[in-house]
């Protein structure tokens, strides 16, 4: 019935128009603007990739996001496995303990690591007190500091999304595996892990896109020495007023993020058509 459809359209119209008018159109204008450069249609991109500094920033950002994703996957999966097998009361307590940091702001969580990793920070003071080092180590403003801060940001997210996935794997399947003679290790690698792959991919996409576009953590823990795409975008726009340069970075970030999401969710769907 056409009338029913019309009612649906009318009710969703305010939200639809808001997303189109304030999100799609503004981002579309930013991206379209990069192709209208008087120097030529791809000129901003050519000058981006001709700059050694800017390509370094792009690859550094990809590297940080990839390492953060891998570390979060490994530790998140192991933790989620333990949480999903814990007794009910302990399990809800552990879930709350993972939700809490997630609801604490990114600035607060990056700031915590600033206190820990600083020149006169807790870690350096402890190392000196233990006699392990005489000079304070330079831990802040390194790639390691940024990755630690990012893993801290995203491990809870990974744990929470994987606990749901692992709980949905029927226990009968695992019991069948062990009653047919598979060792716990074999059950883990050959039964549990393959069944969890679609969930692992979804979690990995969340973490990768999140760390690829994060601003506060690399800004506070990496500084100028560890410039990433997000901090470079901000610096180009607000310090140098280089709108074309900033728009080019915005376009590159958007294209990479959307491609990763589309390719990986498609992959997850193909591996297991039952997965959401």
């Amino acid at each position, binding site marked *: 019935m056409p009338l029913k459809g019309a009612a649906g359209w009318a009710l969703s119209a305010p939200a639809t128009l808001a997303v189109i008018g*304030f999100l799609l159109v503004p981002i579309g204008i930013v991206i379209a603007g990069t192709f209208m450069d008087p120097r030529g249609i791809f000129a901003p991109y050519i000058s981006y990739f001709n700059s050694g500094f800017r390509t370094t920033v792009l690859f550094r950002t990809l590297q940080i996001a990839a390492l953060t994703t891998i570390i979060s996957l490994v530790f998140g999966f192991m933790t989620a496995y333990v949480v999903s097998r814990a007794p009910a009361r302990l399990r809800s307590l552990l879930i709350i303990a993972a939700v809490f940091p997630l609801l604490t702001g990114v600035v607060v969580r990056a700031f915590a690591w600033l206190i820990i990793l600083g020149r006169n920070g807790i870690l350096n003071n402890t190392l000196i007190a233990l006699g392990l080092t005489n000079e304070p180590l330079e831990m802040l403003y390194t790639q390691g500091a940024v990755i630690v801060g990012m893993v801290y940001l995203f491990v809870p997210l990974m744990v929470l999304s994987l606990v749901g996935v692992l709980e949905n794997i029927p226990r009968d399947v695992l019991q069948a595996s062990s009653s047919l003679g598979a060792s716990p290790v074999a059950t883990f690698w050959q039964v549990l892990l393959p069944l969890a792959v679609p969930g692992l991919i979804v979690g990995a996409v969340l973490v990768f896109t999140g760390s690829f576009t994060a601003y506060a953590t690399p800004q506070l823990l990496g500084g100028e020495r560890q410039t990433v795409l997000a901090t470079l975008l901000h610096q180009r726009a607000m310090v140098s007023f280089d709108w074309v340069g900033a728009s080019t970075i915005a376009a590159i970030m958007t294209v990479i993020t959307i491609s990763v999401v589309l390719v990986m969710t498609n992959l997850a769907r193909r591996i297991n058509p039952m997965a959401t």
Partner: protein
Amino acid sequence: MTDRPHPILIIVAALVYVFLMVPLVIVVGAALSDTTYLTFPPQGLSLRWFTNIFEISAFRRTIVTSLQIAFLGTFLALVIGIPAAYALNRYRVELPRWLGTLFVLPILVPEIVFGFALLKSLTVGAGVPIFVALLIGHTLLVLPYVVRVISASLASFDFSIEEAAISLGSAPLKTFFTIVLPNVRAGMIAAFILAFITSLNDVSVSLFLTGPGISTLPIQILAHVEQFFDPTVASVSVLLMFLTVAVMAVVERTLGLTFLAK
């Protein structure tokens, strides 16, 4: 039980939880220190850095702005998001599938790109006041959470109840408010809380939408950290954590916290 995890896995999980909790404990400790520099363990306990928050006018102003934006943005997102979520469920067959995807876009697109695009098109391009642009940005930022959570609670709603009410002579709008909305109250509370916390903690969208006299609390914290390294920021952080705990306590009372993990 046969599926008890390997001891090594339990140790790793325990260490991950230590890793998650220790930094937050350190922030609380640093906030209580009596020294003028950031240190842990705290040397001498004092609450003076908490009173210092309110002596710095920039913090006072940005706390107010952040709360205003979070309340108004969440409210607006509920106003446009609830009918949209209702339509997506009620007219599932008639509406195209991409419409549901459209409402997820604000969390799919990099937040920082979204903030920059709003700056370019609204504040610079159209001369929209910064506060309004900030409000629009936050409304869209939290819209996906609202639509998703309300949709989830509408998924279990039996729309034949609504049809029964209408066929018995109740006006459609009245039916919506007296039959549909009360059934998704839990979802509305959860959506409000998730949206409110997301807005309150946002950095990337607000980053570009600040100007003379207008900024949000997380942006002010960032600016303060880069200039001073005193415990004020630690106390503001603790204040924000307390706000989160208070909100979580409300959720726990009304819905149970595992609701948020879904």
